[in-house]
């Protein structure tokens, strides 16, 4: 049986298999159709109708279930996640598993289409070492993402000693992994 315990391992392996089979286009279709629309419909059912309240409910459940170290910060306009220890990337790093070129892209790959359907955009940055941050705002809200520590305080992952150790990828007002700005 293919299991849940080492899910992140065979999930990451699957990205590489799909890329060999049908290129990046098939990988992106997989994130959107299989994960965003099919697997994660419980996330959509909360976030599309409820917006920020739904984000809080969905990620509280799923990040606790996955034993992540994280912090939420929100107001009426913005929902922010500071991920201090990603359980998914952490599993891969601890077990020395790397088949796909950029595992971290899968998050915005499936979250992006859902957030777009909810009428939001994403500012996001990850360092490929299990740390990242996300800010979600309504697409009509043109505010820039917060500066380090100004919204999340000392929970801001960008203040962590090892934040700058990894190779960072950045997304600005994005809804797709195709919109990486660096």
């Amino acid at each position, binding site marked *: 049986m293919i299991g849940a315990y080492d899910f992140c391992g065979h999930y990451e392996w699957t990205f590489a298999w799909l890329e060999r089979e049908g290129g990046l286009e098939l990988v992106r279709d997989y994130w959107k159709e299989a994960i965003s629309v099919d697997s994660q419909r419980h996330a959509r059912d909360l976030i599309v109708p409820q917006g920020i309240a739904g984000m809080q409910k969905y990620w509280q459940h799923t990040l606790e279930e996955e*034993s992540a170290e994280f912090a939420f910060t929100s107001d009426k306009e913005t929902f922010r996640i500071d991920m201090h220890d990603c359980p998914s990337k952490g599993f891969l790093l601890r077990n020395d598993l790397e088949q796909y070129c950029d595992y971290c892209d899968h998050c915005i790959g499936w979250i992006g289409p859902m957030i777009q359907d909810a009428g939001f955009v994403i500012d996001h940055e990850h360092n490929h070492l299990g740390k990242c941050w996300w800010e979600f705002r309504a697409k009509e809200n043109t505010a820039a993402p917060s500066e380090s520590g100004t919204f999340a305080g000392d929970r801001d992952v960008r203040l962590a000693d090892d934040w700058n150790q990894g190779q960072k990828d950045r997304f600005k007002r994005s809804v797709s992994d195709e919109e990486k700005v660096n």
Partner: protein
Amino acid sequence: MSDPGKVGGLPYQDTKPYGAADFYFAINATFRFLIQRLGHEGWRRYLDEMAANYYRPVWTRWKQGGISAVASYLRDFFAAEPGAETTVQAIGDSVVLDVHVCPAIKHLREHGREIVPEFCQHCYFQGEGMASRAGMAMRLEGGAGSCRQTFYADPVGVPEQDMAKIRRVSA
């Protein structure tokens, strides 16, 4: 693998004792996507190549440790699957795994998910994919929530898998 000497029958170790059950949603959705895009042949090839490559650390241990390594893996594997109820018995040169409650089918049903009808076949294609590479054989009977999987140390004389004995999951 960075540390082949890890404790227990699992080659990949996590910091939490159980997997997150919602990952079964993604496994089921992955199968549906692959069957729709690549057909059943593509899905079976995916499972076989996963068995050959991703699960190489598992069947390598089986090849080295024999049928007792299979039993050890199965016990540790299902102990980490949320909601699983299984028994593992060594009987002669074989290991019989009785899945009394399949954790995936249970979770998918509890959450009203449409389960891929061929879902239970994946255990055969993946299990036999690993067993054959270890010089063994695996056969499956039942499905749709409970099943019996038998691993044979010697594949000689083991009848071919009768696919009709693997139940489809009804809507």
